[in-house]
């Protein structure tokens, strides 16, 4: 693989855009990223488009009808919550392999007030769904149980998880792209109505609409366009390997650990070298698990890590300076690209009041249940 750099990034504020169509959101983000890179659609040789809920509706091509139909190859990608980051990785692979020099990756989604999402599969007999009768496959219960596993193993408490939400909501007040920018206290989070124990309402990410985009080039070409190319030091994709309970309780840990190991090896770094992390905090419980999965702390230390504020901006290793999925929102196809966009802004020193000072290396992690995990490591 040759070196690949990110030259342009963008995202639109996540939220609700019922008056727009999803490709309009994607097109808006794409135009902003092209402008940020100082290129036009005429410079783009391949496009990848991540979108989950309209995966059969050629969203990539629809975006190009808005911004430039140059006849380039378009790859439409669906990979659960890792949809956008997988599209980014396809763009990365296209350039890293030497096949193309310039690529555009767009992630977009329009979910509206979709409600609770499920992991799919497992239809019942007699046309009746087993949901709620034979346990739950809906995300809140799955991530409630995943958090409970950590409680069982290490004595982690609901308060530990709540502190994650407090931190991310606090970070969000400085992110104008976040769907919600509301600071709240530990009491606010703990006293909110329970969605699926141990997660309360403010410990669950919202559904919504949004888009994000990135322009990638070979490092050689990138240097013609910018003095601050951001190197993609690793771009890893894993699926869930066999584990006993994965078949009933999706194992979000093992595939993240596998991806992290590969990413650190490829990038030639250790977790201690990271200046910031955007990870998949779809629920507060998930973020805590990933501290250990990503090697940000030792086994069983994640509770202590949040207690001691190590992952707050200004702490040892800031996690989710954007406010995370919990505040920024989680339009599935857009999320993975938006996480990369956030990391790039920090590495360029463009993150405004939430800037992680002096950031040189950042990691973006996404999990799609079912399961897919991407880790992208970006370096200044």
């Amino acid at each position: 693989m040759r070196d690949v750099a990110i030259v342009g990034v963008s995202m639109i504020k996540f939220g609700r855009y019922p008056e727009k169509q999803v490709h309009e959101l994607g097109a808006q983000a794409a135009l902003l990223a092209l402008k940020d890179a100082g290129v036009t659609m005429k410079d783009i040789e391949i496009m990848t488009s991540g979108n989950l809920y309209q995966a059969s509706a050629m969203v990539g091509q629809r975006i190009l009808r808005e911004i430039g139909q140059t006849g380039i190859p378009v790859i439409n990608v669906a990979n659960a919550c890792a949809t956008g980051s997988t599209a980014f990785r396809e763009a990365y692979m296209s350039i890293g392999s030497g096949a193309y020099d310039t690529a555009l990756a767009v992630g977009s989604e329009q979910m509206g007030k979709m409600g609770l999402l499920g992991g799919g599969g497992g239809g019942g007999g007699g046309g009746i769904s087993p949901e709620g009768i034979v346990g739950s496959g809906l995300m809140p219960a799955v991530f409630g149980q995943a958090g409970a596993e950590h409680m069982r193993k290490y004595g982690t408490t609901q308060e530990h998880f709540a502190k994650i939400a407090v931190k991310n909501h606090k970070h969000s007040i400085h992110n104008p792209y976040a769907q919600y920018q509301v600071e709240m206290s530990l009491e606010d989070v703990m006293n909110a109505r329970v969605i699926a124990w141990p997660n309360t309402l403010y410990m669950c990410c919202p559904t919504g609409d949004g888009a994000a985009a990135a322009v990638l080039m070979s490092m050689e070409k990138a240097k013609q366009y910018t003095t601050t190319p951001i190197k993609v030091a690793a771009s890893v994709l894993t699926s869930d390997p066999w584990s006993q309970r994965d078949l009933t309780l999706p194992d979000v840990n093992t595939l993240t650990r596998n991806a992290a190991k590969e990413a650190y090896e490829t990038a030639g770094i250790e977790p201690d070298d990271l200046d910031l992390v955007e990870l998949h905090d779809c629920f507060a419980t998930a973020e805590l698990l990933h501290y250990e999965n990503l090697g940000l702390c030792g086994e069983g230390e994640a509770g202590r890590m949040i207690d001691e504020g190590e992952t707050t901006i200004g702490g040892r290793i800031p996690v989710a300076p954007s406010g995370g999925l919990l505040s920024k929102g989680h339009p599935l196809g857009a999320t993975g690209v938006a996480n990369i966009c956030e990391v790039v802004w920090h590495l360029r020193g463009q993150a405004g009041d939430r800037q992680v000072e002096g950031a040189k290396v950042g990691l973006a992690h996404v999990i799609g249940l079912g399961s897919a995990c991407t880790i992208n490591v970006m370096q200044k």
Partner: protein
Amino acid sequence: MAEADTGTAGKKEIPILPFLRLGEKAGDAAYLFGSKCTSCGATYLGSRMACSKCCSTDPMEDIRLSDHGELHVFSIVHQSAPGIPTPYVAAIVDLPEGVSVRCNIEGVEPDPKNLKFGMPVEMYTEKVHTDSDGNDIIAFKFRPVNGK
């Protein structure tokens, strides 16, 4: 349209999921069915085309899973899809054969203080629905042993 046949002659019991086996005649106990890889010993709920652990394509051995296990983890679901009564306990139960099963825990107030990780639980079945042909849909559930 003619009046629907309301007779119960053809009425059957249908399991809610394919790995729940109902007794063929009255008095037979229902059980969960699994399979075991003859190469590596990995066990599965229901059947598999091949072993997803070791990739062996040798025929799998059918196994009858225990109706007793232990509560691995749970969540108390307070908000769910429309029509699903809440709150309830959504759980993962480990069976001694090395299989885990997703299920509801009944017979206990849905509050974390009433549940303990690792507590013994037992399976039972009950009718949860009648389909449009009058068939009974049977589900399996778990409850704490001793009804506690």
